């Protein structure tokens, strides 16, 4: 069963086809990596899936239901959460508040509930705080809950972004270069976190990543983009040995690695 199906997805910026006719099937509870050289259209693909860009053509189906062209907040409500290539936290807000904001669409309280402190709203708020705290424990940031997000070290900011995305309780999680700028130790921890949360949080994950070690280690499936086109797809071993991929992206030196 495919959680996400992308059919003939195309995005043109003026004369430039950033993504053209990309097809991708993502099975439930899998980890799929999207790789490709800079400017290949990976982030544009993410932006179309999450509703930031409207596709020029093509369809996106989540659980068989079309979500093409929905607004970003509506896409989030459907169960797709994401992190960003250039970290986008709510900088001056505390770590805890960042995660609580991730829960926004799941909280039912309204204006009157908030103003009159109705019991339902209060209970919901307490439950939300507890859940947010558990998520912070999960990514190991519970000790920093009152710290403004901007004060966190780089690796912790990336983990906070993941915790915030998990707070949406997504079916599908898109990670845009989660290991960018991390040292090997942090990358190792991140690899474990991604692998574990896929099972523990019942997630399907798509990630964009340049760290080939991480990609080869955790993904079940890899899609390779080059110049906006899907040039190869398959298991890590297949991609590793695919001559077109090696030529387009990994470079000649990668042959030795393979």
């Amino acid at each position: 069963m495919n959680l996400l199906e992308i059919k003939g997805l195309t995005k043109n910026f003026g004369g430039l086809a950033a993504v053209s006719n990309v097809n991708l099937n993502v099975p439930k509870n899998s980890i799929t990596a999207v790789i490709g050289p800079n400017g290949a259209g990976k982030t544009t693909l993410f932006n179309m899936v999450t509703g930031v860009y409207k596709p020029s053509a093509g369809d996106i189906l989540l659980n068989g239901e079309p979500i093409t062209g929905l607004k970003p907040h509506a896409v989030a409500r459907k169960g797709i959460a994401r992190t960003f290539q250039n970290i986008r936290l709510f900088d001056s807000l505390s770590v805890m508040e960042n995660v609580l904001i991730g829960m926004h669409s799941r909280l039912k309280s309204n204006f009157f509930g908030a103003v009159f402190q109705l019991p339902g709203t209060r209970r919901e708020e307490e439950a939300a705080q507890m859940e947010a705290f558990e998520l912070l424990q999960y990514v190991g940031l519970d000790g920093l809950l009152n710290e403004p997000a901007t004060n966190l070290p780089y690796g912790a900011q990336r983990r906070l972004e993941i915790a915030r995305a998990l707070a949406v309780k997504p079916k599908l999680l898109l990670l845009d270069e989660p290991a960018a700028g991390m040292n090997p130790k942090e990358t190792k921890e991140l690899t474990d976190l991604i692998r574990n949360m896929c099972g523990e949080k019942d997630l399907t994950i798509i990630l964009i990543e340049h760290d080939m070690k991480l990609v080869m280690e955790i993904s079940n499936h890899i899609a390779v983009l080059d110049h906006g086109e899907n040039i190869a797809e398959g298991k890590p071993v297949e991609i590793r040995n695919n001559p077109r991929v090696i030529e387009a992206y990994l470079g000649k030196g990668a042959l030795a690695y393979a």
Partner: protein
Amino acid sequence: MGKYWIAFVANKSLSGGLFLLYVIVTSIGIYLSQKSIVSFLLLLASLLILYFLQFPDKVKWAAALVILGVVLPFAASHGQSYQSYMDVAVMVGIYVAMALGLNIVVGMAGLLDLGFIAFFALGAYTYGIFTTSQASHFMPFGHYPLSGASFWMFILIGCLFGALFGVLLGIPVLRVKGDYLAMVTLGFGEIVRIVFNNLDKPINITNGAMGISSIAPPELFGIRFIYPSQFYYVVLVLLLIVIYMVRRLERSKMGRAWKAVRENEIAAQAMGIPLVKTKLAAFAIGASFSGAMGVVFAAKQAFVDPTSFTYLESTTILVMVLLGGMGSVPGVILGASIITILNLQVLTEVTNWLNQLSMSGVLKIPDALSPAKMQRFIFGLLLIVFALYRSKGLLPAKNMHYDLEKLARRTHSMDAVPAAGETNKG
């Protein structure tokens, strides 16, 4: 200095006792020397001191209520300056409530609104038109003027009107961001004023530049609210409601959504926050406070005309928010109080004093340089100084504090859920 302050604050009986003494001394000061605005200001400053003392919130609120509800009016009541003190206090209340409204829009949601006074004008004119014979010029049904007993209902109508126009302004305006948003809202503010200035023909709705006079004073159980000392309590109650609401909203899902939109629109949307709806809510709620206070303003002045709603007024409210601290409720209350008192009391007092000096021939100050006319200059100076040295305002916004221990204990007592993540701790 800081060390001593901490030690002082920690000793509750000492700090509480000295605080009480301070309040008593300043109250006696007002009581005995009626003309001394210094003791009046010092008594108001007791609220600021109270804010910094370490007592439970409930105790602080109770103390603030006693000071504002009993001590201040009583101490000031002994003499002919009574009404002028209360007049200033009423204006402070009105401006604080309005600044708290603008704080939602500018401080929390991060939407620069330079035409905020328009909603105030809408509230003021709504009450003004319907409680004078003005309404009979264009209303096909009903008997006008309405009596002052309708004032209480009009506060709600002012709220709704403010909110309605907030949304009407918001729908087209929220497509633009930053500088453009500021320009459009500035335009809106001026348009509203100019419309009110010219809406005396073909049908006379607002009576144009002449303004509307003899607006009915509020009535409750047969009591007519004419004096500032009576309005004081109306404004005090409204202000408490406004502060309560703002506090609640700030800590709710909606408040968090506003701040998220301010911090990062794209990330906010990705978290499921609808951008337009959230911004409209900020506009509507902020504007509704302004609309309600407009009704109070019209009833208190018994007169409205377009000159009360100029661009300078919008700027004044914005300066209150910036000075106090964007997004900070206590900060905005302080900022609005300082600016209002500066405008209404300090500058006029200094002007009077200088006039006396020039009358007695000690020194000669040309009329053009009188401090009362230097409002804009002083605002500009304040803004520059604050931008340079204290860009987050007098009392910067603080994030809500979450109790780590309490949360840890509660989640622990639930069941073994957290254990799942233990391996990933880094």
